[in-house]
């Protein structure tokens, strides 16, 4: 029985997804594999990202304490999100609720509809706290309302990358900054067995995590397609700005429905980061004017572009595709960071051997596909 464990892992790219992969695999594999981050990506990520309760739990389970980022002012914990101009009511909060109270086995939203109340706000502990500007943590009391929600985070991307890079180094992950010249593939399996760098160094590899935005290995060396799709409703452009007026930090993020899409507002101690998501059909100048209408004090516009689409199979041969090169919906209420966490947790659950057994990989791909569809 040839059941050879994966020993050499190369993570291509240096995005937040790459760092998350490196730390996850180093811990998940109990430091038994050689992990190299091949730092050759120039992807410019958004300055801030949202980490759901699942994202926070995933780090906690790995033994990574994100409190450090909160203490440094680089992350803000929140128990709810505020939606302005989205629904019938102009201003509504949605809590990070795991459960809402039930009445005789009947879910809250039915009771709410029966009461003709129009909002679940009144039933959510997480929302009640957010509305009162209270930062709360789940109490840990079983079946108690104070334990009915999870904490999510707004995180500054660069701070997260630096924090995770520190963790990766401590876990023995190596960094190599160099371009890829070529790869060598096994004649029988077609698996990439080594990566030859521009300086002729050779990296042996059993498993590749391609976290580059352009899919350097997946698309260019394995010649697998990233299938872009044209979705007229997709918010596939974003302009990012800051406010330095130092408004009070809020235990929630705010989303405002606008003429061309939506603005997402994340408040930190040092500044507020604003992101206006819109569709490519909107005129840039109109979008900026609209941005000014909402936040006249904001400045320093940086533009981002998303390629909406996905790869056919996230795992191909011995390469797992992650981050913007794997899948993108443009703006999504389930951000990419959470998606990466889900993929990595599935990878650990169904971790392959060096042969990457076909049923195992098919199942992994299918589960990820189901996830995307949902």
């Amino acid at each position, binding site marked *: *029985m040839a*059941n050879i464990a994966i020993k050499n892992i190369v993570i291509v790219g240096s995005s937040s997804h790459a760092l998350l992969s490196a730390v996850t695999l180093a811990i998940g*594999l*109990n430091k038994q594999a050689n992990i190299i981050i091949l730092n050759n990506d120039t992807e410019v990520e958004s300055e801030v990202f949202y980490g759901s309760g699942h994202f926070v739990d995933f780090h906690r389970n790995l033994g990574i304490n994100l409190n450090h980022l909160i203490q440094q002012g680089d992350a803000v914990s929140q128990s709810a999100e505020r939606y302005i101009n989205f629904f019938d009511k102009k201003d509504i909060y949605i809590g990070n609720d795991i459960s809402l109270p039930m009445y005789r*086995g009947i879910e809250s939203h039915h009771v709410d509809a*029966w009461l003709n109340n129009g909002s679940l706000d009144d039933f959510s502990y997480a929302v009640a706290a957010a509305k009162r500007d209270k930062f709360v943590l789940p109490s840990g009391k079983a079946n108690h309302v104070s334990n009915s929600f999870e904490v999510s985070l707004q995180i500054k991307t660069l701070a997260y990358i630096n924090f995770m890079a520190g963790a990766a180094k401590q876990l023995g992950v190596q960094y190599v900054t160099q371009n890829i010249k070529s790869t060598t593939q096994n004649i029988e399996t077609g698996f990439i067995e080594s990566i030859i760098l521009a300086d002729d160094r050779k990296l042996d590899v059993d498993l590749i995590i391609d976290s580059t935005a352009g899919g350097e290995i997946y698309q260019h060396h394995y010649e697998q397609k990233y299938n872009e799709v044209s979705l007229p409703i997709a918010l596939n452009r974003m302009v990012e700005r800051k406010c330095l007026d130092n408004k009070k930090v809020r235990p929630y993020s705010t989303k405002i429905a606008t003429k061309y899409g939506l603005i997402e507002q994340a408040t930190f101690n040092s500044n507020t980061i604003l992101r206006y998501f819109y569709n490519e059909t909107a005129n840039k100048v109109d979008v900026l004017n609209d941005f000014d209408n909402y936040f006249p004090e904001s400045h320093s516009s940086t533009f981002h572009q998303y390629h909406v689409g996905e790869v056919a199979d996230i795992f191909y041969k011995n390469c797992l595709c992650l981050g913007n090169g794997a899948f993108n919906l443009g703006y999504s209420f389930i951000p990419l960071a959470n998606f990466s966490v889900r993929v990595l947790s599935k990878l650990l659950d169904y971790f392959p051997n060096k042969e990457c057994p*076909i049923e*195992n990989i098919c199942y992994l791909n299918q589960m990820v596909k189901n996830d995307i569809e949902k």
Partner: protein
Amino acid sequence: MTFDATSEISKKINKIVIVGGGTAGWMTAAAFANRIPSSHCKIILIESEQIGTVGVGESTIPHIRQFNEVLGISETEFVQATNATFKLGIQFCNWGKLGDDYIHPFGEVGQLTQGIDFHHYWLRSKELGLPYNFEDFSLMAKAGRQGLFPKAETLKETKFSDYAYSYHIDATAYAKFLRSYAEKKGVERIEGKIIDVLQHENGDIEAVDLENNQLIDGDIFIDCTGFSGLLIDKTLNSEFISWADWLPTNRAVVVQSERAGPIIPMTTATAHSAGWQWSIPLQHRMGNGHVYASTYMSDEQAKNILLENISEPLVTEPRFLSFEAGVRTKTWSNNCVAIGLSSGFLEPLESTSIYLIQYGIFKFLEYLPSSMAMSAEREQYNQEVKSVYETIRDFIILHYHVNQRTDSKFWIRQREMSIPESLERKLGLFAESGRLDLGQFGVWPSVCLGQNLVPKYYDSRLNYINKDQLSQFLKQQKMLVDNALIQLPSVDQYLSMIAVDFNNLVRGNNG
């Protein structure tokens, strides 16, 4: 807060009519009465003493505890009323090969460690020549073989504190017990045989006409008429999808016998040449039955095999049943929901009959419609019920398909037949790398390994640890089981304790 009887919502469903008593009928009546206030909706159950019941599911799975818990039924009273014994799993004999014997226990075997399922550790240990049986790491399997019961207080501080168990029950007594519960909660029982079913123009059932000239109308009708499917089949013609190609057993001969010796907290499923035999211990008797495929075996042969394998005196005459594995495409059609045998049938190999009743009841309560035309809920309900049937179907087929027997045409055919695609995928995944499909039914590693299906690969990360480390880890895991076993009472002892509790309860209630 009280429901406003004049509000628009409460006007919509005023009356639910359950047609048929038996286990399905009275479970439905009891659960509905518990969940739907009698001020809001009247619940009627029609049954006829002229029509017998099949009395499904003497052997159950742990979900029944949740059912009882939701209804606020005390275990002490339930055990006494149904002559129940405890069940920790199923012992399968002769399934892989003649002479094989394994247990499919409730709950996990071993402990998920470092994110890797326990059976991978065991597979690695086999390769390294370590001397452990997979069963050594299941408290339920070990306790089952020794006739012990894991008493809750004893295991409170251990990793086994949330262990799973269920019961062997007298299903007829359970129905009777639930009837009393339901009637106390306001369910009206009407004795009568249905002679006609009246329908609205849109096909919805309007009323049922009884032999004694009573006409019972309703907003929702629950068909608990068993195999006859009086409403769902004979009136609404809901299509039945047959799975007989995969599950060709279509007959059973059942008989009750006396019980002797200590109670074993397991159902026994012994494979014969064209099917299998169950043996279920109750407090006062044994339930026995032989499920077989009539294409391969005559009734007489089946009866003889059954009787040859019962050592205690019989207390009833052998009785024959016919059935066909399958499910209705629409278990909820128009304003009628089929619950129990009228919705579909899967043989009792994994004791799922009562679970399927329970699933249908709770799913319907989850989607309880507020008007008569809620097709979205109906579609969703039908899809979910069908899906749970298919999941269990696959698991049952697995038992038949993964065999190495050469002694009968039946077993060779079952091994060589093509299987559903959904099972092929799950089986392929396990056979290749020991991986488990999320949401699959039962403890697959126990059944697959028990029937000699050993995955090609274990999790290769276990190559990172050496033989000594693995040996030490398994030794500790086994010790946890062994230490817990020492403290457990026998099932008989535990039942005696429950009987004492029950008597105290009765004395307390009497003053």
